[in-house]
Every structure is written in structure tokens, then in C-alpha cells.
């Protein structure tokens, strides 16, 4: 139903929305701005907005001091790897829960979600010890496993809500057509749920890319992603704001671009089921 919104109200809401948006964006904006300042100007008080001497030397120094590509490659491996394995587990799980629910399915879903309510640091020591004993510390495989497990509850929940929207009769039709369970998943369910799977995939890539707690705790060099790359600039010998900002900008740039292009898909994914 169309509701009449007065021009005044619209104006206030628009201004408010922009204000909130800018407020949220400001730290990122400031980081990017700082990355183009010299170290001296970066800590200047009161700060300068645009009337400083623009320089790209920070980027040069950062690239020289640490190999950006190696970290970036690890980030890509971890984000894609954990997403791939998570989907491999989550698609059949969500399928089972959506189309063949048992008495305890709802409880199971709640339990999975509850694991996200625990502070990760609570599990740090046992996981660290397991990693140490199984020689998984600073390995891509190890950290991919952790990131996958970390995001699995959210992925299963998202896919579950997607799958719930697919009429069961279509899957039954495929069974009547002679499709085995695997073929039903491959030829019917997955293609139909593709928009949902795509937004789940995107969200998980972003979450895995940005994950800092476990990647910082469990990697040092070989498997270190961009979070380590940033952290290495907040060294004990002193803070270098401009270089830290340059490193941060380099680390978030790929995901920012991805997010920008995928925002339509992401918004659709996150509001799916709520709005039809």
C-alpha cells in the first residue's frame, strides 16, 4: 500500500540517513586520507582535511618493507577456501533441515546459532593447543578450517531460509523424474537457489576476509593474510599512522570494491524472506 510521506518528513529522513551513512564511513575515509599524508602531518593537531601535501610515498615504503601480494594471496586463499568448504557442508545440511526436518531441527539450528554467542577468545586456548599438537599453526589448511567452522552457522541459517522458500513439490517432481538425491541437489535445488547461494558466498567471503581474531592468533608468516599485514604496522617500536593507514587501505580495497559491485546481491540476500 502506498503511504503518503510529506516532503518535510522525506527531507529529514534523507538528511538523517546521509548523516548516519557518512558517520559510519568516516573512519574509512579518514584512513584513506591519512595514507596520503606524511608521517608528520598524519599526527598533526588540529588535523588537516585536504590542504596537506599529497604523497604516495607510504605505499611505496609499505610495499618495499612487506610483500603485499603474499599477504593478499593468503587472504584470497583463506576467504575462498573457507567459503568453498563451508558451502560444501552447508548446502546439504540446509537442504536436509529445510526439506526433511526432524523433531529437533529447530533446536539444532538454535544451537548452531548459539555457538556464535560465545566470545571466540573463550575457545582460543584449546584451539591453539590443538593446532600446535597437530602442527596446524600458520598453515592455510588450519586457518581455513577455523574460518569455515566460524561462519558455518550463519551460512547454514542463510541457506536454510533460502531453501525454505523453494516449493517442496518441485523437488518431489525431480524425484518422480528419477533423480537421485545427489542429482536433485545438483540439477534442481542448487540452480534454483543460486541467487541465495551467491549472496551467502559473497557475505562469507567478506566475513572471512575481515576476520582478524583467529587469523592474528594462529598465523605468523606462511599463512598470514592481510590482517597480519596491517597489524605488523602497529609495532612496538612506535606507531606509524600514515604507513598503517596505507597498509589498511591496501588491505580493505579489494573487499571494498567487491562489496560495491555486489551490494545489490548482498542486500537482496540479507533481506530475503523478509521482503517478498
Amino acid at each position, binding site marked *: 500500500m502506498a503511504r503518503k510521506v510529506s516532503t518535510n518528513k522525506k527531507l529529514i529522513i534523507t538528511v538523517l540517513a546521509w548523516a548516519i551513512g557518512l558517520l559510519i564511513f568516516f573512519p574509512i575515509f579518514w584512513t584513506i586520507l591519512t595514507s596520503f599524508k606524511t608521517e608528520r602531518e598524519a599526527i598533526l593537531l588540529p588535523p588537516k582535511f585536504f590542504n596537506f601535501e599529497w604523497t604516495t610515498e607510504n605505499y611505496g615504503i609499505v610495499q618495499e618493507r612487506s610483500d603485499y601480494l603474499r599477504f593478499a594471496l593468503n587472504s584470497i586463499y583463506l576467504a575462498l577456501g573457507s567459503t568453498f568448504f563451508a558451502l560444501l557442508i552447508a548446502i546439504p545440511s540446509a537442504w536436509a533441515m529445510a526439506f526433511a526436518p526432524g523433531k529437533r531441527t529447530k533446536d539444532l539450528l538454535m544451537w548452531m546459532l548459539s555457538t556464535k554467542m560465545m566470545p571466540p577468545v573463550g575457545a582460543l586456548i584449546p584451539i591453539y593447543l590443538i593446532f600446535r599438537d597437530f602442527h596446524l599453526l600458520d598453515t592455510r589448511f588450519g586457518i581455513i578450517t577455523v574460518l569455515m567452522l566460524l561462519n558455518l552457522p550463519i551460512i547454514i541459517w542463510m541457506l536454510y531460509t533460502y531453501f525454505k522458500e523453494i*516449493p517442496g513439490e*518441485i523437488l518431489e*517432481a525431480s524425484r518422480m523424474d*528419477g533423480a537421485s538425491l545427489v542429482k536433485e541437489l545438483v540439477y534442481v535445488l542448487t540452480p*534454483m537457489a543460486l541467487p541465495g547461494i551467491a549472496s551467502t558466498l559473497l557475505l562469507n567471503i567478506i566475513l572471512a576476509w575481515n576476520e582478524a581474531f583467529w587469523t592474528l592468533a594462529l598465523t605468523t608468516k606462511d599463512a598470514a593474510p592481510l590482517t597480519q599485514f596491517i597489524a605488523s604496522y602497529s609495532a612496538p617500536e612506535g606507531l606509524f599512522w600514515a604507513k598503517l593507514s596505507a597498509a589498511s587501505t591496501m588491505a580493505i580495497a579489494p573487499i571494498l570494491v567487491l562489496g560495491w559491485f555486489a551490494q545489490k546481491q548482498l542486500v537482496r540476500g540479507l533481506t530475503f524472506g523478509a521482503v517478498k
Partner: protein
Amino acid sequence: MGTISLKKVHKAFGATVIIPSADLDIKNGEFVVFVGPSGCGKSTLLRMIAGLEDLTSGQIFIDGKDVSDTPPSKRGLSMVFQSYALYPHMSVRNNIGFGLKMAGESKEMIDGKVAKAAATLNLTDYLDRKPGQLSGGQRQRVAIGRAIVRQPEGFLFDEPLSNLDAALRVNMRIFIMQLHQDLGTTMIYVTHDQVEAMTMADRIVVLNKGNIEQVGSPLELYNKPNSVFVAGFIGSPKMNFVENNTIGIRPEHIEISEKKGDWQGKVLLSEHLGSDTFLHVDAGARGRLTVRASGENTFAPGTNVWMTPDKSRMHYFDKDGRAIHK
């Protein structure tokens, strides 16, 4: 071949019994219609035959082979769903050919069979469209195409026409009957519409609260219903019941006159169909009766009339609603 037998088929969800115990033998090539009010278990029964619903106990045989634990894909049956259940992401061609692809047939074979089915169903021009770009009737035909292309042992129809408008429904009804004549394959058809049941079936299975009330040809059920339930369900308009539901008489078996007759009454309403007129008559203590009169009948509401039931067409029931055959 396509004989289907149910032996003591029982279905319960926890403590709720859906089908207490059903026994039925369907002959090869028969057109059987399951009919009954909503919630009578007819769809559940069909889905158990399909294999989409597990049996709580009992057995189902197809061609003499016990398929009670066989998955739907291995039962050799095709099904047409009420919602059509087409694959929305596939073209009409792939929708129809999906079953053949699952069976591992070669591409040339699939193309040939799909083209033949599409020609039968007037779908040739739509083969490259997606289901979303088709009308309701076209989607229905795709669903039927998907079912026939595999040359199954039997077809299962789950209220396939209930989403179509009235005119299309009549056309599709005739189309399905023609299809049955051409293919000669066993068909089980579920509907809540007794007109569909009467017009299409070789045999009708009337279900009530999960029980099979009566099985018989349309005319058997019409002439010799074995319970008040079947008598009231089969035939349109409904049979009249008088004397505390112990006597039933159909509207077409009552003669109406302004001058003389057995029962007196007053016309309340008349429905003119052109070919017939259905008069709703207040017959005092006998309640409200429906009487079929000729299309030219012009009894106005309020007219006093006399009605004479055809004694030989009266149905008698005991107080439990079972028929007493005299």
C-alpha cells in the same frame, strides 16, 4: 503393464491416523479417480503410491512387485502436481526431457522424444521458453509432457486442474481422457470435484476420513451408493435426504406439478441453467428439497407445488448411514 495393488496400507503421523487401512486393486490401463472432501486422505494415498510418503504399515505392489520401500525414482510412475511443480530455471525442452536425462538416455533420443511429446501437446513453439513465460494452461501441458515422455507404468495426477479457470478445466479434462484412450496406461487421478470423477473415471474410489467408502464405476456409485456419504457426494445437485436421513432421492427423480402429488411444498428459489431448472422447495417437515425440472419451467418463488418421488429410484439407509438394498 501397470497394475497397482494396495494391501492394508496404513498411514499415521504420530498419534494422528490419516489412513486406517486401505485395500485396493487397480487393473492395468484403468482410469481410477480418488475422490472425497478435503482432508479425506486421497492425496496422502496417492503420495504413498508415488513413494513420496512412507507407509506406516502395509504394502504397495506395482506389477506384482512389492515397492513399499522403493524410492519414487525407481517405481516407474509419473506424477502431475497441482502446482505443476515445473523446474523454473529450465526451458520447456529441458523440463520435459529431465526425466530422460536422469535415465541416462542419449541426447538424440531425448530430443526426439521431447519433440514428439511437444507436438502432441501443442508446445512446439514454446520449447525454448521458461515456465515463467507460460500461461497456466501451457504450464499444465508442460507438466503433462514431462509425465508422458518417460512412458511410465502409470500416471498419478494430484488435482491437476484445480488451478485452471473453468473453461480451460473442461478442455484439459477432455484432453486427459483422450490421452488415456491413446496411451492405454494406468492412471490414478485425485480430485475433490465429483463432476471430474464422474466424467473421467473407469472406476471411482470414494474416500471419507481416510477410509475407502466405496469403489465402483460412476454409474454404480450413482445408482447404488452404499452409504449416505457416497449418496450425498456423488451427483449434482446433491441427493435429497428425508425421514432423518433414512431415505434419499435425487433431484432428477422427483416429479413436480402444481396440481397433485405426494409431497406438498412451496418454491423458494429457482436456478435456471437453460437445459434444466433446479427448484429449491420448502417441503415443510421434510425440509428443503432440490428438484430438477425442465428448462422451460417458470414456477415463481412462492408457488405452491406438489412433488412425486419415483419410488423405484429411492435409496434407503439405516441409522448408521449404510445402504439397505431392497
